[in-house]
């Protein structure tokens, strides 16, 4: 089945503020037999700051990492962080389209990048390369009380000519992945609304207002949990939920989990390993309401992994 090898570019956020995304994703990949390998000596993708300063720099930072992947002999690199993904993909596309750029960039980086790598988001891998039955097979727990608002954020599918994946305005990949893991997903109209992103540093209030809208819509849509795939979205919705409550006079208590954490939970990985306890808004009710899945499809021999400690 799926025994493909992928390069895995975790990026800076997943090494720090979004460690739980990193850990949970690796666990999920492990259970799904998705073999991943980190390129050695990877560097920062440059994220938003690089391209606001110098387009060549932005492209070169992306290309450097892609060249490393190329050297590993792999043709797909998973970039779970949407910002990393966009930067890598943009660098790839720009160099592919414009031989001038390719020449310039290859002059600056140590080893040339020969356009042989496709950067993909973690969502794309799970949606396109893993059959939904395989995800269903891994499920050992169900969480009947859980109703999730799948929140994709701005850039994982946009602009469409860069992402080349899913519907730009009404993506459904995360919906489908969670559904195949037996998790109930609500019809969420604000899937790609902006959370405010890095504006929180300059103008907290803007982020608070924008993130408020997202959380409010999740609540109105009947969700009691938000699933995300972007470290910054997670931070704004989770970390700032208190700020939002104070500013807007609301009383949100909606846990914001990476979709990989949700998958990990129903796959039977210990909440601790998945970093559920790292969340700011308490999500313990979710783990408490977990119960053995009644209808288990296939894979009889696999038992839930033992709780650590």
């Amino acid at each position: 089945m799926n025994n493909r090898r992928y390069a895995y570019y975790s990026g800076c956020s997943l090494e720090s503020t979004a460690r739980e995304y990193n850990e949970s994703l690796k666990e999920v990949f492990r259970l799904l037999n998705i073999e991943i390998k980190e390129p050695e000596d990877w560097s920062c993708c440059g994220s938003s700051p690089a391209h606001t300063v110098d387009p060549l720099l932005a492209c070169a930072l992306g290309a450097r990492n892609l060249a490393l992947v190329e050297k590993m002999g792999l043709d797909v690199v998973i970039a779970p962080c949407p910002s990393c993904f966009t930067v890598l993909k943009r660098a790839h596309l720009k160099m592919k389209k414009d031989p001038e750029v390719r020449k310039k960039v290859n002059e600056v980086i140590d080893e040339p990048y020969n356009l042989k790598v496709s950067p993909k988001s973690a969502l794309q891998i799970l949606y396109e390369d893993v059959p939904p039955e395989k995800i269903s097979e891994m499920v050992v727990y169900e969480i009947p009380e859980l109703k999730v608002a799948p929140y994709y954020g701005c850039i994982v599918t946009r602009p469409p000519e860069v992402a080349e994946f899913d519907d730009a305005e009404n993506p459904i990949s995360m919906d489908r992945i969670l559904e195949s893991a037996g998790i109930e997903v609500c019809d969420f109209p604000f899937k790609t609304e902006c959370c405010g992103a890095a504006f929180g540093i300059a103008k907290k209030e803007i982020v608070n207002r924008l993130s408020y809208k997202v959380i409010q819509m999740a609540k109105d849509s009947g969700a009691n949990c938000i699933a995300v795939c972007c470290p910054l979205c997670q931070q704004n919705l989770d970390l700032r939920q208190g700020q939002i409550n104070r500013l807007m006079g609301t009383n949100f208590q909606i846990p914001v989990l990476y979709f990989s954490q949700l998958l990990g939970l129903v796959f039977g990985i210990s909440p601790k390993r998945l970093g559920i306890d790292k969340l700011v808004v308490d999500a313990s009710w979710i783990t408490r309401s977990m119960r053995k899945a009644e209808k288990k499809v296939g894979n009889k021999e696999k038992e839930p992994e033992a709780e650590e400690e």
Partner: protein
Amino acid sequence: MRVGVFICHCGNNIAGTVDVQKVAEEMRKIPGVAYSTTYVYTCSEPGQNEIIEAIKKYKLDRVVVAACSPRMHELTFRKAVEKASLNRYFLEMANIREHISWVGDDKELNTQKAIDVVRMAVAKVMNNKPLFSSSFKLTKRVLVIGGGVAGMQAALDCADGGLDVVLVEKSPSIGGMMARLDKTFPTIDCSICILGPKMVDVAQNERIKLYAYSEIEDVKGYIGNYEVTIRKKATYVDWNKCTGCGLCMEKCPSKNAYDYFNFGIAPTRAINIPFPQAIPKKAKIDPNYCRYFLKGKCGVCAKICPTKAIDYDMKDELVKEDVGAIIVATGYSLMGVENFPEYGGGKYKDVITGIQYERILNASGPTGGHIKRPSDGKEPETVVFISCCGSRDKSVGIPYCSNFCCMYIAKQAILTKDHLPKSQSYVFYMDIRAPGKGYDEFTRRAQEEYGVRYIRGRVSKIYPRGEKLIVRGADTLLGIQVEVEADLVVLANAVISNPDAAKLAEKLRISYDTFGFYVESHPKLRPVETNTSGVFLAGACQGPKDIPASVSQGSAAASKVLALFSKDVLESDPQVSYVNPNVCVGCMKCVKTCPFGAIKEEELRDGRKVAKVIETVCAGCGICTSTCPCGAIQLQHFTDNQILAEVYAFASGK
């Protein structure tokens, strides 16, 4: 060989930047050039007479006119040399105006260029051969494809002119899009009330043979002599027996069939008559929904039909018709609502398209003309119209304007107010395009008398809040973001070409643009002709068009056909390919590459197989000539030797 060269000054247009005297002088040096002169306006009557006189006086047998583009005046000069008893194909033109004097400032270089170009024309003309048209008979019957308002108009006008008409309509009834409209702008006429009588005229006209629920399978032949194969699709009801009583439709237990006529706004029965005024008013079974076809048993309609018209075993039938001209009036399609995910198209039941709303407004529509929104049947209080959904949006690949949406939005907003006086309509628009007679006044009435609120800006998103839909957009005049709480949202979805437009174009060998709209011969001066002689266009198959424009084109195309058929024989263009059977080796590569099927294999008396051109079918592209390895097939007037002569003349330039 005695070539005459005539260099035109075109006033100062050419002489201003080309030394025409010098060009004329240089030409005299070429062996075979017997006469070379200049004239101030060669295309004028005295200018033409000069050519005619010179041909007689100097016994010229070839003529080169160096002047403007041959696309402009080739025919003029051909007629002139013909007046001097020279074959018209002994004329060549050198374009020294559009390609030289108008695009270069340096007189010396322009003159040199003109000398080269005229010399090339001289070299070519020396290789010209006299060509003669042949005449052929034509079938004075016309095929009209498409029974919408444009096709009906064309069919009726042709029939009035005494022609027999074959009218082929893809759907079960004629009427097209117009039959679905509630009212027409800007007069608020009842659409079916004005169209219905025309439909009846079509049905009753003895000269019109109607094939409803039929499609064009194949088109063979050429202008004057087409053989058309028509596929009569199986309706599973014998239309000779069906009286259109509608009993079957009433009793059919399969109540969830897709209603094509109503654009799916409500379901219909698996056996149905599309609408009360349908012509022909006959029932048809949709096998995708019919229980008999799905489950193998039911047969209610067969039992109940008083004339025993139901025939579950019916098969498609192919029929042939001979015609001499074809009018294409296949109309348009609309972009589906599911193409607008950001507006929740296909997800929110109360986000509908303009044509669907038209059916809701219509008294014979599924709601009986009461405005009820699809989700819960409630009367909407706030209706939002969004113009340019898809149109003028490069991101969906449609840069063009859909032509009539601005107007029907205004109309629908006015009708909404008429139906529901308490309602409030909003229109998000990019620009209001109302250039027709009485059109701008109409959109102003919507705003001023009916209080429709026009917001200039695009809508970015639609999302639900409770039972309402929140329409979020920009008001670019105020520079703010606005949100409107709507009960019903109507999208003015883009006009697109029919999904099978390209396929039909290929059968007819007419061109179509990137968007699948058919291309007219000249955008200004030949709007209903195509570049394939004998095939004409009418209505929105050429591009989005409103009713009056479509009707005008229907009449225009009909008048073109009547003019064509006023002759008893047609003259063929002799600029076609010719096979020299002594040279042809019979590899038949030309047969394989001819886009028109104009070349066939012929067996000579000695048993040798060679290619042969059907002159009347050949369009004169010359693909065969560049395919033939041994030069056996030559496109007359653009032979290898003629083109090579130009190349060699070009090369001798230095």
